[in-house]
């Protein structure tokens, strides 16, 4: 099993640690995830722009930001990919930046799927 398969096998959010951080209030956690989601969309489009323009400073900065908010919500995989993005900005590594951006999108979708499923569990 390679690294990617491993990450797929795990849930995108470490719920128990996220809940512990905010005192166990689940509805507050979903409020936070909504804030995160809004914020993410805005940052993602700026990241796309930055990768296109090879603006490594912005990639580093946004990667760093996303890493922080992902970590706060225990979004372990998004945190990891954001870290890679930050590093790619630091190293001015365009290929790594492009690859990480793609993974970032995948991980975010995975989170959304996971949340959707959690809110509307299938009848079986």
């Amino acid at each position, binding site marked *: 099993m390679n690294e990617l398969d491993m990450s797929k096998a795990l849930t995108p959010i470490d719920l128990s640690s996220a809940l512990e951080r905010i*005192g166990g209030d689940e509805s507050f956690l979903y409020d936070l995830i909504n804030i995160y989601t809004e914020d993410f969309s805005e940052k993602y489009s700026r990241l796309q722009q930055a990768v296109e323009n090879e603006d490594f400073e912005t990639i580093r900065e946004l990667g760093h930001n996303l890493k922080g908010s992902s970590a706060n919500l225990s979004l372990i995989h998004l945190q990891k990919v954001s870290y890679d993005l930050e590093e790619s900005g630091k190293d001015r590594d365009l290929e790594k930046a492009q690859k990480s951006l793609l993974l970032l999108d995948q991980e975010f979708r995975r989170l959304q799927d996971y949340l959707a499923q959690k809110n509307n569990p299938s009848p079986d």
Partner: protein
Amino acid sequence: MKVLIAEDDKVSSKILERNIRNWGYKVIISNNGQQAWQAFQKGEIPLAILDWMMPKIDGLELCQRVRQLKKDHYTYIILLTSKDRKEDILEGFRAGADDYIVKPFDTLELRARLQTGKRIVDLQNQLIQTNLKLEELAREDSLTKLWNRAAIIQLLEEELHRSQREKKPVGTILVDIDYFKNINDTYGHLVGDTVLIEVTARLKKKIRCYDRIGRYGGDELLIVLPNCRLDEVEEIAERLRFAVCQKKIQTDMGLLEVTLSLGAFSSEKQPTISAENLIKASDNALYQAKRMGRNCVVINKYFQTLTQREA
């Protein structure tokens, strides 16, 4: 206690706000360094949590700026950082941070660190209060070299306690230089100062060696006279009045005729009187002396009759 949060990451900011509010602090939110800096300049902020990475003004610079602000209170600063490299932490401390916490932070740890901060701020405030008190109690009035207001009141209180124990009366005289404001207005403050200094010098010569003089207000002097009955306090007050009016005072603007109004009282017939009421009684008498045309001594009769009635 107020906590300022400066954090551009909305999720982190929300978590901080929620937790810190739940712990009973008042929370001020800034979404960037600029906003936080304005808040710092505006009012007292005892505790601050600053994110290291913020656009424009980052936590580190904010920290340095806050430390350069001349303020009469302390701000305890916790830097919030996702960096945990040793050199960064050292840089934070050099910039003036008191503590740091690494993101994603542990809630219990943050709470404990805030409590530490609150404790330091409380201690600091106590220290500031004590210093203010000490300053107030720095006992000498710089112009007249007499006891200052706080000191003379404290001396009176101490004297009153001792006298009550020894069952002896304490006398107080409030002295006011007549038309002192006119002297200042007509001849200037330097001449006013000369008059004040000469008056205090003459008074010092005429009181007993164990009497104390303090500067009670602008041109009001309070004299504390241990073991002094009403008739004695009146006699001394009269001696003081005469010492000033009998001879003109030499100033840069020539010889000036200066007179005093004096209000006197003694705890003789009211041994349990408070220092505050002793001064009040003298002040009432002084007011009477002013009304009677100045350059005279008045002994407070009101408190006297009150005492007799009580007895």
